[in-house]
């Protein structure tokens, strides 16, 4: 009990939530769940829908796995998780079919493919099986939101460049149909709506992230180098002063 309390530092929940969005972003950092990320990001609405369904499945499976973590024997953990995840996906699929049929037909087979999404199984195995229900819930929320934001980022570029603007209300039909044309008709690049465009957008986003990371590492290295030089100089000066002082004493 002591050890557990020691481990829990202040602001752990916040950190736990934020890590899924930035530091351990499932799509852009861990490169997991790439299949739906490329397939369902033709429009921002589809991306939001996919992200929502994914988050719901992740939250449910993480919480149930965490609840059952002491009941499931060590040896059959993976089979149990797969069955749990598949059950939740089936439930979510049926709800989508009943209440958001437009979203259901847009995402198609990719709703079922949440079962084999590496993130859900990965979070169950790496986090929920070792932590309590509340922490698992926060972890799932963070990861799901991080994934959804990543999907929206990709969809933003693909819809903006491919169709020249954003359309809302097509998939979520309770929103009035609104179109926001930014690039005039005839100047959009249709290619970004095709599979090739998905690969390009994903590749470029990863390249930009790598660039930022490299730049940060470079800056850090530079600062460290300068610090080192400064310290060496200071030591030299101190030695010189000491020598002068010694000379004066003689």
């Amino acid at each position, binding site marked *: 009990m002591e050890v557990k309390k020691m481990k829990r530092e202040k602001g752990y929940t916040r950190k736990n939530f934020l890590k899924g969005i930035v530091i351990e972003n499932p799509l852009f950092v861990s*490169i*997991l769940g790439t299949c739906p990320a490329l397939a369902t990001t033709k429009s921002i609405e589809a991306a939001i829908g996919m992200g929502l369904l994914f988050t719901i499945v992740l939250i449910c499976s993480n919480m149930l796995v965490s609840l059952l973590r002491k009941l499931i024997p060590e*040896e059959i953990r993976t*089979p149990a998780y797969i069955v749990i995840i598949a059950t939740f996906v089936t439930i979510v699929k049926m709800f989508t079919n009943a209440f958001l049929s437009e979203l259901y037909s847009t995402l198609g087979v990719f709703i079922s493919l949440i079962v084999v999404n*590496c993130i859900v*199984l*990965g979070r169950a*195995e*790496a986090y929920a099986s070792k932590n309590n229900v509340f922490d698992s819930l926060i972890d799932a929320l963070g990861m799901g939101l991080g994934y959804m934001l990543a999907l929206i980022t990709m969809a933003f570029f693909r819809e903006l460049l491919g169709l020249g603007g954003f359309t809302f209300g097509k998939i979520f039909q309770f929103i009035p149909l609104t179109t926001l044309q930014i690039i005039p008709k005839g100047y959009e690049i249709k290619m970004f709506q095709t599979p090739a465009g998905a690969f390009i957008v994903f590749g470029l986003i990863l390249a930009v992230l790598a660039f930022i990371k490299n730049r940060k590492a470079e800056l850090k290295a530079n600062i460290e180098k300068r610090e080192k030089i400064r310290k060496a100089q200071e030591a030299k000066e101190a030695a010189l002063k000491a020598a002068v002082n010694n000379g004066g004493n003689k």
Partner: protein
Amino acid sequence: MSQTGYIIIAVSILLALLVTFIVSFVLYRRTPVPKGCEDIKASEEKCSGCSHVECHFYQDKEENK
């Protein structure tokens, strides 16, 4: 045959599948790695990208951390 009978059969087939899965999973884990394959270790050279939990490249990587 009545609908209930069909459902019972289907559910029992699903359960049989589940049992097959669990048994084969446990057996797979318990079977020793064949000779000459013990030294397959994680390496950045061979893969990157998918950090799959089931993959023992990934598991080795996690252990090394």
